[in-house]
């Protein structure tokens, strides 16, 4: 009896929340179903990075965790990786743009699931996680450190020195400053590869849909279902946000301004490719541990990436897993909330876009209900607390 009452109350509640959807089941066509299944399964099968000899190594993971939290990596002794990539903030920092030794121009991305990326950073300046872990150590605005400083730290701190030698089979001193810095990057990478986001209510829905389990699919809110329909349909979001991480791993321009100050621009992917082509710390360089070297299949995109005009002002298509936790949004942190992001796509100014993106993105002119549905869907990509 009590159960029935609660059920009735819940039903009234549900109807009150979604007046337009009374008793209307959201169903998906075969094509939609196939599109939805491609957002999973989650988590992906574990894999290791052939370019990093300590990828997956327990000792390296422990050393990486220690280093990640150690502010002494920066000469000021004040900035650690964890200062910006804060574990309790989904490994982001909640700020519009990062502040390290100085104020930067880009938003700190979450490091959850970063191990699955092909290109790292908003501009994809690195093609390995270890390369992307070395970049902030030496970047002026982030930790403003140098290989020699890192080598000295690893040599003089006895705990770090022991862990380093155990992991790499040689001391940082014997290795030399630059190889020791690479090794530090690889230990940091081994740790970050373990940062995998939790399953979400969307994943449960997706797996239930795959299994034909209608009791399972009915647990996913109708509003999120309608938002999902928009995401893969009219909204065209899944042209770029696709696959289990909701990203194609590539770069695009969605009309977020890229001026960073008077007369200054963030060239985005264009500068990223330029940086990458000059860097020695890549899958194509001598520090890659891949036995197949630069001919490894994993290095094919690194070989063939092309510097083209359309890369100018393009930024990485971010993963949308855990997006609820990583406000503010976009490469420069200018959109504060998910409703603001949805509003951006809804009222999109096409004059701001590259000509090719204008053929894909157009103002969606969403109704208030559609905007709420899309938001409900995006929130369902974060683990329930």
């Amino acid at each position, binding site marked *: 009896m009590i159960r029935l009452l609660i059920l009735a109350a819940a039903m009234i509640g549900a109807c009150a929340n979604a007046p337009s959807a009374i008793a209307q089941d959201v169903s998906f066509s075969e094509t939609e179903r196939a599109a939805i299944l491609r957002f999973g399964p989650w988590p992906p099968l574990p894999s290791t990075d052939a370019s990093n000899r300590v990828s997956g190594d327990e000792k390296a993971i422990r050393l990486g965790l220690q280093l990640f939290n150690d502010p002494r990596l920066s000469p000021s002794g004040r900035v650690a990786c964890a200062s910006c990539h804060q574990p309790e903030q989904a490994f982001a920092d909640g700020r519009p743009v990062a502040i390290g030794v100085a104020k930067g121009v880009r938003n700190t991305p979450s490091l959850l699931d970063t191990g699955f990326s092909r290109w790292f950073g908003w501009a994809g300046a690195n093609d390995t996680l270890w390369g992307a872990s070395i970049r902030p150590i030496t970047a002026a605005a982030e930790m403003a450190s140098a290989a020699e400083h890192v080598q000295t730290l690893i040599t003089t701190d006895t705990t770090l020195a022991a862990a380093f030698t155990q992991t790499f089979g040689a001391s940082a001193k014997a290795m030399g400053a630059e190889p020791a810095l690479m090794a530090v990057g690889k230990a940091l990478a081994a740790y970050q590869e373990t940062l995998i986001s939790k399953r979400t209510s969307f994943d449960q829905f997706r797996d239930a849909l795959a299994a034909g389990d209608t009791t399972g699919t009915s647990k996913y809110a109708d509003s999120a279902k309608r938002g999902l329909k928009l995401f893969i349909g009219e909204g065209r979001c*899944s*042209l*770029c946000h*696709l*696959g289990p991480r909701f990203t*194609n*791993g*590539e*770069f695009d321009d969605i009309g977020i301004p890229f001026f960073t100050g008077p007369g200054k621009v963030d060239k985005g992917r264009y500068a990223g490719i330029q940086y990458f082509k000059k860097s020695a710390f890549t899958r194509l360089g001598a520090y890659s541990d891949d036995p*197949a070297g630069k*001919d490894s*299949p994993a290095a*094919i*995109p690194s*070989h*063939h*990436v*092309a510097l*083209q005009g*359309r*890369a100018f002002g393009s930024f990485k298509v971010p993963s949308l897993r855990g997006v609820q936790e990583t406000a503010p949004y976009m490469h420069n942190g200018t959109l504060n909330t998910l409703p603001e992001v949805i509003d951006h796509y809804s009222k999109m100014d096409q004059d701001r876009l590259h*000509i*090719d*993106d204008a*053929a*894909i993105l157009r103002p969606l002119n969403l109704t208030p209900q559609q905007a709420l549905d899309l938001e409900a869907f995006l929130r369902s990509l974060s683990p329930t607390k």
Partner: protein
Amino acid sequence: MITGAVALLSTPTLAAANCPIDAPMAAAGDYQLSYTLTPALPTVGQPFQMTIEACGPANAPYTGPILVDADMPAHRHGMNYKPTVISTLPGTYVAEGFLLHMPGDWRFKFRLAGADGPVRLAHGHVQP
């Protein structure tokens, strides 16, 4: 690059082009070609290879240079990568470095050096 070619040779079974091609995927004048992809169904956002069979005048294998590319005509954009082509046997080529970053209607484009100037061939590809 040479080691790259050797690595490639071991993947698909390669033979000299069998000219003329029965049902070419693209043809213009004396020139025709067909191709296969490895994997046969590429995943969006993942690299793949293309093996090309090309024929020229007098039903002989085409042995000149081939440039390959891909674009989405409706979106007016191409790939973010530039594939490279290696000739393996007469009329047979392997192109590496393709990566289609969006689902939808793509087009593979080929440029051959014809006897009277460039020969442009194209074939549509629907990327799921």
